[in-house]
């Protein structure tokens, strides 16, 4: 279990090199394909992302973690070809972001409208749950993620690919954690325990509750990456230090998002100060960096900065601010390697659960 799943196959952790930990290739909210104003020119998108990846590679970058999750434009076959051509490893993600942006109704409504029939209906109900079906429960989410981590990710067509995800994404809105988000967060932790992969969470305003939910499912802090810690609305270096001290990972991953109207925008100078403070406090071994760049927006604009912004502009800025070579290497190479290397699964029931999952398959009348 020490190899990492990328879109071009399993690789040794040492081969990761410099990693940008939170980027998007294609990116759109679910439903974009129905909007006439959203244009997906696949050739154009391919060309543009390939250029971005090549620029990243030229500056020394070797791996991009693509963290858009299931529903936000992920296109595995296209990403695989891009990875082959550019020579940049792409690590892809399962899971959902906040309900507002990413969890579609299909996964939200517990037992909604479900009327099972046939002799095995009892097999599809969660014991003790009043809901007639398991849709929208944490178990359902867990199976969804677990299958993407072990069998392969679902493609944009109705085909499951052979490329496995290596990370589970979860998140929440800023004001509250909705029920669907809770199920997704718990499901993410359960799937991560069964496979040994890490969890990447965002929605840093709700980090306390998210952390509670993740650890309540038995996930150790060392398998949790708290993303978006440089969200301009919720910067709090003492919070970051607190979580770093208990072993969680802190993601400063919106580098380059400097201007409004992005609500989480913040000047890179302030980000550099944050990182500097963390490094000075001895937490360099808990920080990962990234740009959250969008290669091609689906029904939304791409970011002005690309994946190379990290190495081109921000790393020199950090160096100038006095962050040493050693700390930079830790944050860009060693930390991502330690996060992404799968650990031994802590939930030994994975096999039994897989069998259990078979009972959850829905018989479709007429299909």
């Amino acid at each position, binding site marked *: 279990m020490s190899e990492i799943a990328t879109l071009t196959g399993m690789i040794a952790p040492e081969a990761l090199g410099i990693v940008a930990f939170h980027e998007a290739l294609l990116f*759109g*909210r*679910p*439903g*974009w*394909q*129905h*909007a*006439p104003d*959203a*244009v997906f020119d696949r050739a154009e998108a391919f060309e543009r992302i390939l250029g971005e990846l090549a620029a990243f590679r030229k500056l020394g970058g070797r791996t991009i973690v693509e963290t858009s999750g*299931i*529903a936000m434009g992920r296109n595995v076959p296209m990403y695989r070809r891009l990875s082959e051509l550019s020579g940049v490893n792409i690590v892809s993600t399962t899971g959902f972001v906040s309900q*507002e*942006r*990413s*969890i*579609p*109704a*299909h*996964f*939200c*409504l517990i037992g*909604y*409208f*479900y*009327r*099972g*029939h*046939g002799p095995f209906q009892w097999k599809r109900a969660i014991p003790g749950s009043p809901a007639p*079906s398991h*849709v929208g429960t944490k178990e359902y989410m867990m199976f*969804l993620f677990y*299958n993407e981590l072990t069998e392969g990710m*679902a493609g944009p067509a*109705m085909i*499951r690919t052979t490329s496995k995800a290596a990370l589970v994404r979860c998140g929440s809105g800023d004001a509250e954690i909705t029920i669907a988000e809770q199920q997704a967060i718990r499901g993410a932790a359960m799937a991560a325990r069964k496979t040994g992969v890490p969890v990447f969470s965002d929605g840093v305003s709700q980090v306390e509750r998210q952390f509670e939910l993740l650890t309540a499912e038995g996930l150790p802090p060392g398998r949790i990456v708290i993303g978006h810690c440089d969200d301009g609305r919720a910067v709090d270096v003492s919070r970051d230090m607190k979580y770093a001290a208990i072993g969680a990972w802190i993601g400063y991953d919106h580098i380059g998002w400097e201007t409004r109207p992005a609500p989480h925008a913040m000047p890179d100078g302030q980000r550099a100060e944050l990182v500097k403070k963390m490094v000075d406090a001895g937490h360099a071994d808990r920080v990962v960096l990234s740009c959250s760049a969008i290669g091609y927006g689906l*029904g939304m604009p791409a970011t002005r900065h690309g994946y190379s912004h990290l190495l081109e502009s921000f790393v020199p800025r950090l160096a100038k601010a006095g962050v040493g070579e050693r700390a930079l290497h830790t944050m860009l190479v060693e930390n991502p390697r330690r996060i992404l290397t799968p650990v031994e699964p802590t939930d030994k029931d994975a096999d039994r659960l897989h069998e259990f999952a078979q009972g*959850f*398959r*829905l*018989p*479709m*009348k*007429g*299909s």
Partner: protein
Amino acid sequence: MPHLNTLLGTLHPEEMGMVAVREHILWGSSGWEFDPRAWPRIAKVFEKSFNELLDFKLLGGQTFVECSGIGAGRDLDFLVKLTAVTGVHVVASTGFWSDAHTPAHFRRYGADDFARLFTHELTVGIGHTRIKAGVISVGNGAGGMSELETAIYRGAVRAAKATGAALITHGIDTARRQIKIFQEELLALPRVVFGDCDRIIDLERDRWLAGLGACVAYDNVGLEAWSDLPYAMPDQWRAELVAQMVASGHGESVMLSAGSKVANLGRGGAHLSNVGNLLRYFVPELEKAGVAQEAIRAILVGNPKRVLPIQRDSAGGAA
């Protein structure tokens, strides 16, 4: 000239024949496409749809209005092939059903954004195609009308006024609120069909709506006691409802449909009714309830022909 947009282009109202005003081929909550467990075996679903539509056609049906709106399983190329090989005039609809089922991309839309989207689908084409929707189909979930649903209704009304398309609504529990919106937005009520009228039975409400000039659709025909859906009921009751509407002189405001779903994506079994049952079993049921042949013909042919087509006056505005 009034016309109806089908998947294969325009249709003259005289060619519409018997119409099922609210049906579904594929139906799923938005996001089913991300869930391998919800993926239909598409070839089998096509076969089943083909059989059901052909059954409907052989019983005399000619037009099939597919009311799954945007993102809820409306699958254009599937529908185009289906209409091309069966000869049934399949009509696609634009619109969203309920707050929860509106995909994230559209959740920041306001009423005017929705109006622009629906108008685009009715006059230019769905997505980036040139295939146009024929009717607007919107609705609200249980428990009143949320802010987003209000914007969807308002957008639908504005699109209906701009294009002359008919508006079918689903969510009869908010009928009064809907009427208020239509009156505020100055939509002529004869352009509106209230669906789901046999989910909450209320003959007074139906007569009131008909009196205002709107149409009421009893569109769950065939959903009998075998179902454990809360609004299942014997077809005999529905037939009695229709008979009473006709008896009180509101036969011109009634429409019928089976509300069938060939494939219910990710939600267990399909709707076990099918569109053929509307003509095979329910029309005899109506006769038994004492509805005259001419009235049945008006309900299945005349009323849809009057209401559903896109109607514009000679100046180009909605009639």
